[in-house]
């Protein structure tokens, strides 16, 4: 019952027109609320003379305050549907947009993000994250991140296995980890994972929440040797980055297979070779 924008009630998603960061996920006919939004951390500025004056930079992620929302939602989402793929095209603002898609028969929902050029007029460094949240999901401040695409390492918020962590003054970056291909939460019945198509920093700072950093543009060096701000440009403006996150959600016993096969497929993709035909031939002739 009821239309599903992308996919179907076995695995699909519908966007809330009135608040485009809100979605309803359909998994095996269950309806699960999902919030997906783009935010940015302001980069800490400092002269690096003493520790508490360190600037965020290439070798340091040091946010200044809570992440700020990015989407002004001026433009309504656009839906595309057909026999191979269904998509929702969403423009957050001038320099952040996203396509949410599901291919027929596939076991994941793809969030293809496009970020940049990050504006530099206010000279405030911006470190952009994509944050997914399933309200009321209980994962006991525990999440799992892969280690170079292999074993999954257990992470607990504000905790270190090898020493007792004093109060974590850097309570955001102190909980960030390298996500080379996957970050997962589990409430013991289901497993909620986001797979990425390249290494990114990420964490789960609240129960039910996963965030991954997709792009950074910073205007101060962090005095760790590179002696240059992390401020890559192309064609005279800030660099544009494009990539995908793949959302999977399902029963714990089933999801490992789904994630393992998906990450291989996305990280070791087929190679494309093109051969132009000078004159149009029929299939039989070509055969």
């Amino acid at each position: 019952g009821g239309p599903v924008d992308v996919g179907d009630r076995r695995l699909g998603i519908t966007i809330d027109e009135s608040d485009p960061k809100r979605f309803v996920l359909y998994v095996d006919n269950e309806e699960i609320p999902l919030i997906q939004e783009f935010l940015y951390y302001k980069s800490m500025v400092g002269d690096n003379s003493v520790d508490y004056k360190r600037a965020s930079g290439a070798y340091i992620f040091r946010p200044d305050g809570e992440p700020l929302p990015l989407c002004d939602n001026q433009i309504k989402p656009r839906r595309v549907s057909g026999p191979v793929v269904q998509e929702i095209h969403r423009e957050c603002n001038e320099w952040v947009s996203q396509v949410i898609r599901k291919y027929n028969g596939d076991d994941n929902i793809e969030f293809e993000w496009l970020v940049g050029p990050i504006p530099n007029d206010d000279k405030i460094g911006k470190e952009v994250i994509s944050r997914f949240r399933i309200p009321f999901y209980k994962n006991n401040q525990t999440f799992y991140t892969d280690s170079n695409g292999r074993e999954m390492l257990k992470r607990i918020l504000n905790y270190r296995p090898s020493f007792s962590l004093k109060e974590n003054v850097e309570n955001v970056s102190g909980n960030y980890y390298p996500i080379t291909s996957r970050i997962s939460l589990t409430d013991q019945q289901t497993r909620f994972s986001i797979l990425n198509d390249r290494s990114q920093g990420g964490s789960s700072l609240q129960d039910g929440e996963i965030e991954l950093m997709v792009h950074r543009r910073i205007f101060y060096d962090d005095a760790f040797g590179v002696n240059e701000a992390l401020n890559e440009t192309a064609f005279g403006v800030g660099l544009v980055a494009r990539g995908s996150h793949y959302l999977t959600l399902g029963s714990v016993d089933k999801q490992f297979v789904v994630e393992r096969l998906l990450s291989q497929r996305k990280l070791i993709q087929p190679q494309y070779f093109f051969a132009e035909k000078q004159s149009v031939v029929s299939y039989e002739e070509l055969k």
Partner: protein
Amino acid sequence: EPKITVLRETMGVMQHHDAITGTEKQHVANDYARLLNEAIEECKEASCSILSGLATGIETTGCKTCHLLNISQCEVSEHSEQFVLTLYNPLSRPVTEFVRLPIAAETAYTVVDPSGQSLTVQFVPLPNAVLRIPGRKSSATAELVFQAKDLPPLGYKSYLITKQSSSYDIKSLPRAKRSAESET
């Protein structure tokens, strides 16, 4: 062998954490991009000559790659009346790939797989934000999407992709002829 070793050596350099994360100086990052691009080009020549010995329709001379598919730009798919797309699957198990090729909108294409079946295709408009990417030099405003099923392990499949005459336009095209298995 020497054409492949260049990429091996370059990937050796790319193991540095700066290369992976992009935290090196800008001119070093640009040099990494140059090294990778040259090495991939060398490797492509080797791949093409091997493939042309194996696959139908791949002449070494005409063999091309599209490295800018990540910004939905591809000279071949945007301007050719007809071309063969060969997909090589590097995994040791069959894989299904959803192919997306940038095309000039309002143009219909047919896709025929190696068994002669015409595949179900879909034409998807590109988001406006993609059309605005600085440096993107492409006339494509849509993508041709189809499912390449069961690419053989460590093997390839070739697809014959033909632009329909201009009398077609996407809207009038009947839902593409469904290949037998997709009906079942």
